[in-house]
């Protein structure tokens, strides 16, 4: 009963965390709240019974560490396995799928591959795989290059460049290996939990259960969403798409005005490391971008060679989009 209560609490917490973290309008406050709640949860954490013994026999540190290493090293095949499960876990919820031969599926596949050729992961074990389902309009990507797109996305974007922006964002998650990283982090924390459990007094050392749920946010968090935007902009530019397409979609989703974004010159330093990413890759010498996903999106374009204003999307590509998606 207690465990079940704890599990439900944790699930609710994840719910809160997810909702807070992905509410783009005030993500930093959401993140703070999430952290506070996670800390509270850790304090109240009960020990897990997740594998601290196999068949009743407690395992040694090195045995656990070996398994950890085995389970976290992954190549293209291992990543595909991981991604397959991530997508399959929700695939049954979509009653209708678009055929892989549907022109829109083929179109999404071509855009994905075009973007991928300019990225760091042009190929995966069995190629970038578009999975189109009927749904409100979310897009997600999993390790191994599986990209699930809900058909409602065609109602959100208006041009090929905007669609490419969404796909580049999802592709960036795969390139940055968010799901593998998340998986490895969880595995590490789980091993940590098992290693540190005191069999005589489990209540004193069982907090890694909550810790690894907190640590999962390293895989998918507001910060990684922003990083995915930044990486997406680089990939879009390299492919020849208008990077403002991505920012326009962000503006549409957040309800902000793209024209009101102000240029941030070079806000170096500051103590808000968690809130402001810098563009230097960690050296701290790059410009610090403001909070707010749209502002960061536009400033990323400005600080990485422009263009300084939205040049507009290619009419040829937009015509192609209208023809394939809307039959116009």
């Amino acid at each position, binding site marked *: 009963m207690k465990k079940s209560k704890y599990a439900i609490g944790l*699930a*609710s917490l*994840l*719910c809160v965390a*997810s*909702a807070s973290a*992905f509410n783009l309008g005030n993500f930093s406050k959401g993140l703070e709240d999430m952290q506070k709640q996670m800390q509270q949860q850790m304090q109240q954490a009960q020990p897990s019974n997740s594998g601290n013994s196999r068949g009743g026999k407690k395992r040694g*540190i090195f045995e656990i560490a070996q398994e950890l*290493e085995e389970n*976290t*090293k*992954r190549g*293209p*095949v*291992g990543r595909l*396995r991981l991604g*397959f*499960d*991530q997508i*399959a*876990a*929700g*695939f*049954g*919820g*979509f*009653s209708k799928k678009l055929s892989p031969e549907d022109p829109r599926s083929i179109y999404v596949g*071509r855009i994905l591959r*075009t973007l991928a*050729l300019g990225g760091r992961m042009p*190929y995966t*074990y*069995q*190629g970038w*795989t578009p999975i189109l389902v*009927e749904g409100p*309009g*979310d897009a997600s990507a999993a390790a191994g290059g599986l990209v699930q797109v*809900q058909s*409602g*996305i065609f*109602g*959100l974007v208006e041009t090929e460049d905007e669609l490419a922006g969404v796909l580049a964002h999802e592709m960036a998650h795969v390139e*940055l290996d968010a*799901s*593998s990283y998340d*998986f490895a*982090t969880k595995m590490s924390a789980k091993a940590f939990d098992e290693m540190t459990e*005191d069999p*005589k007094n489990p209540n004193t050392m069982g907090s890694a259960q909550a810790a690894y*749920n907190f640590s*999962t946010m*390293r895989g998918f968090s507001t910060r990684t969403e922003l990083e995915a935007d930044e990486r997406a902009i680089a990939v879009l530019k390299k*492919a020849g798409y208008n990077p403002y397409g991505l920012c326009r*979609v962000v503006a549409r*989703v957040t309800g902000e005005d793209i024209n009101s974004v102000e240029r941030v010159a070079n806000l170096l330093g500051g103590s808000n490391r968690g809130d402001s990413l810098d563009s230097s*890759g*960690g050296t701290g010498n790059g410009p610090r971008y403001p909070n707010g996903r749209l502002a960061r999106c536009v400033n990323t374009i400005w600080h990485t060679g422009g263009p300084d204003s939205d040049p507009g999307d*290619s009419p040829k590509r937009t015509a*192609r989009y209208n023809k394939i998606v809307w039959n116009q």
Partner: protein
Amino acid sequence: MLALQKRKIAKGFGLISTLFSLSMTSTAYAGLAMNDLPGRNQTWMVACQKLPMHASATGYSKTVGFLNYKDHVKIKKLSVKYELPPSQKVEAPENDDPTAINIVPSLYAWAQVNGPSGKKGFVPVSCLVNGRLANGKYEDPSDIAKQTVSLSAETIKQTVSSRGFSRKEKGDRVAMRGMSPTDPIADCSAEMIESNAKATVSSRGFSRKEKGDRVAMRGMSSSGSDGICIKEDYQGLEDYIKKVPFVTDSYNEDLAFRQEGGLGEFK
């Protein structure tokens, strides 16, 4: 006895912390086959099913040949250096410590290799593995779906939770993303699935649901606050993926597409 046990645990704690940190560090090399960085003149194995070799270190350059899964290649040169983003660097020991060392591995995206037939070309490093991965069970592609399930069902479920999905403790999986703490948990009833299908935007223009002021869930999304029914379907996904054409040579396959759109090498 208890004190001794605790001392043992305390002693082990440092080692464990180190292992934990090392593990976290190792995961930071995520762009590659986790942990391992290729070096010049090393022999690595191709772990992508069919891997085009390019004339230069970009996918927009011509395809000069193909490598197959399990081909061995010799690394001649590494190109296109990059760093992982801040979220994946390992900070030690505390955020506010000015002396903290940020471990940001420098990685390379492309490698110039000599293939089995001696042909030279550039391939993405993300398709290469070495050592244990090259011989291990985790890079054996046979029956991917089955092995995935058996690999670690519990940890996979945990991973799924972390992506914004969660499960009811007893019952079907439901989506948590986009839901506020007060939102009801969606279930996988036929009505729910039907309502998801209906929610699909069928008309032109921006038409996200305006139910509530919350928009945008994870990443790019347009839907409102309604939960989405999450129900697993491994077989369904496997069947779907089998029907998706496997494009082995995207450079040539999509050449006309890029040319028409002024993309890639035609930008």
